[in-house]
């Protein structure tokens, strides 16, 4: 089966979607599809409309024209992690199952968080801590776990790596790949870090100024000189950063690229604004590459 052909079995099918904020057109004639169990990346610069697309998929925004068909349960990991800061990690997770109330299964089974802890074992230790006091990486794990609590067949992640240290991102990416492999959950990954997104996902869409500028297999896109210049930031031939298939060193060790960079990147989401978090991202990408080179 050709993966780029639409099919009735697709879990998400978006056709000629137009979304406007007042007079401004945020999305212009965007079409996109996601097959069951597929990992799809959505890359593009700031303001290209990535988050608008996500919020339309999950029903927070309504389209002006075009159709959005979501044929499976969908859950969103919102940009900036969006913790309930004064609730515990466990409470945050349980609220993820809120929309399942009154459906089929017993409430007790819906509220059961143990399987999420099995999937994200780092959270066990902090389950009774207030989510607001966690590190950026831990919060991102809570955000993923919280989305998983609604047992989605499609998981939409808005900016996985934003403001996070490269090793933390690598760890999260590995968890996502595992989730996709073992539970068959389809993943739509929105990323500014195109290298990471193309490494992790099999297909990708490039969104520019509200339109799909390119789409296809990740490998093809990564090989295209235009894409490489615009989004990967460097000429081809460099080793890729640690992704799902190359999780990077477990122990940072003494010859870790730059521990100070990691520390600032990890602190950014809790103390800084989105601006600082974005500013840190370049550092994150560079450090990720450095880590990959060291590992080889």
């Amino acid at each position, binding site marked *: 089966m050709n993966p780029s052909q639409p099919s009735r079995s697709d879990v998400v099918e978006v056709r000629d979607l137009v979304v406007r904020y007042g007079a401004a057109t945020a999305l212009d004639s965007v079409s996109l599809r996601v097959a069951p169990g597929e990992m799809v990346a959505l890359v593009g610069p700031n303001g290209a409309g990535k988050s608008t697309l996500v919020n339309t998929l999950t029903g927070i925004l309504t389209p002006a024209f075009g159709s959005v068909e979501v044929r499976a349960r969908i859950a969103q990991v919102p940009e900036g992690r969006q913790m309930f800061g004064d609730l515990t990690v466990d409470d945050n997770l349980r*609220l993820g199952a*809120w929309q399942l109330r009154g459906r089929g299964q017993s409430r007790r089974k819906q509220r059961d968080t143990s399987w999420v802890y099995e999937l994200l074992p780092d959270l066990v230790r902090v389950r009774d801590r207030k989510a607001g006091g966690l590190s950026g990486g831990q919060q991102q794990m809570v955000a993923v776990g919280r989305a998983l609590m609604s047992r989605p067949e499609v998981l939409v992640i808005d900016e996985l790596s934003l403001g996070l240290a490269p090793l933390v991102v690598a760890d999260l990416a590995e968890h996502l790949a595992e989730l996709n492999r073992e539970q068959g959950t389809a993943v739509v990954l929105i990323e500014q870090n195109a290298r990471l997104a193309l490494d992790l996902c099999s297909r990708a869409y490039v969104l520019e100024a509200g339109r799909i500028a390119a789409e296809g297999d990740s490998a093809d896109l990564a090989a295209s000189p235009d894409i490489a210049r615009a989004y990967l930031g460097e000429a081809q031939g460099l080793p890729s950063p640690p992704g799902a298939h190359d999780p990077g060193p477990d122990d940072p060790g003494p010859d870790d690229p730059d521990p100070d960079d990691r520390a600032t990147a990890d602190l950014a989401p809790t103390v800084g604004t989105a601006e600082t978090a974005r500013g840190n991202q370049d550092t994150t990408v560079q450090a990720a590459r450095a880590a990959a080179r060291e590992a080889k």
Partner: protein
Amino acid sequence: MSDFLVYLITGLGTGCGIALIGSGLVLIHRVTRVVNFAQGTFAVVGALTAISFLDTGLPHGLAELLGVAVAAVVGLLFGMVAIGRRGTSPQAALMVTLGLGILAYAVEVMLWGDQGRSSEGLSGAVTVFGARIQTHYLLIIGVTVAVFAAVAALFGRTDAGKALSACSSNPYAARVLGISVTRMGLIAFTVGGALGGLAGVLLAPMNSVSFDSDVTLIINGFAAAVVGSMHHIGRTLAGALFLGVAEAMVAGYGSATYQTVVALGLVLALMIGQAARTHSVVAEAG
């Protein structure tokens, strides 16, 4: 000694009334981030409605229950006006509640006149350590303890309570998870209205209630809620009891003229002390 005990129990009774007002403020603020200045109005509406029903010959209990129910409906209506429109900021909603409270004056004067009215409370008295204590005060204390236990359990133990808290903690995330923030806010206003009404019907036998009684109630209730940082149920109760007892002591041993002033001064001192001790107050306010 028996004087002291009488003042203490009287103060605790008054404090419980303040606490019920404060609990409604905290509940609504915890869900919507709105400081509801119409909370005193709910009490006035509840009390005056109950008194009217008693006048028509309805028995005690039923009349008070109807008063609380009407206050809950008024709470819902106020909530619909204050936060029903999506995107209304908590500050704008605060002004709306203030305006609605003043509008309510007109309606209350039209319905019940401008004279203070009172109801008969629970009759009888018990003697404790030689002090005669009105049974009604014990009723207020009992009801308040039950209400606070219920509210604390709601927020502390139930998923519904966590979802209510989530709405103010992060409204966007709540929407992403499928929690209807507006509906939760309206639930909070309805329950807040009922709590206000409950305070009103319990306080009516102690002080006569008129259309503008809400001012005293809201000042005291707000002070108690601020002691609890508009968030903590237990500390709100403590603040309210302290206020009530302090007022009763000032009135008993000094002059009733100064009871509110002195009590509020003490609360102010308490809050300044609290702020100096912890830096987290700033974080909570933000």
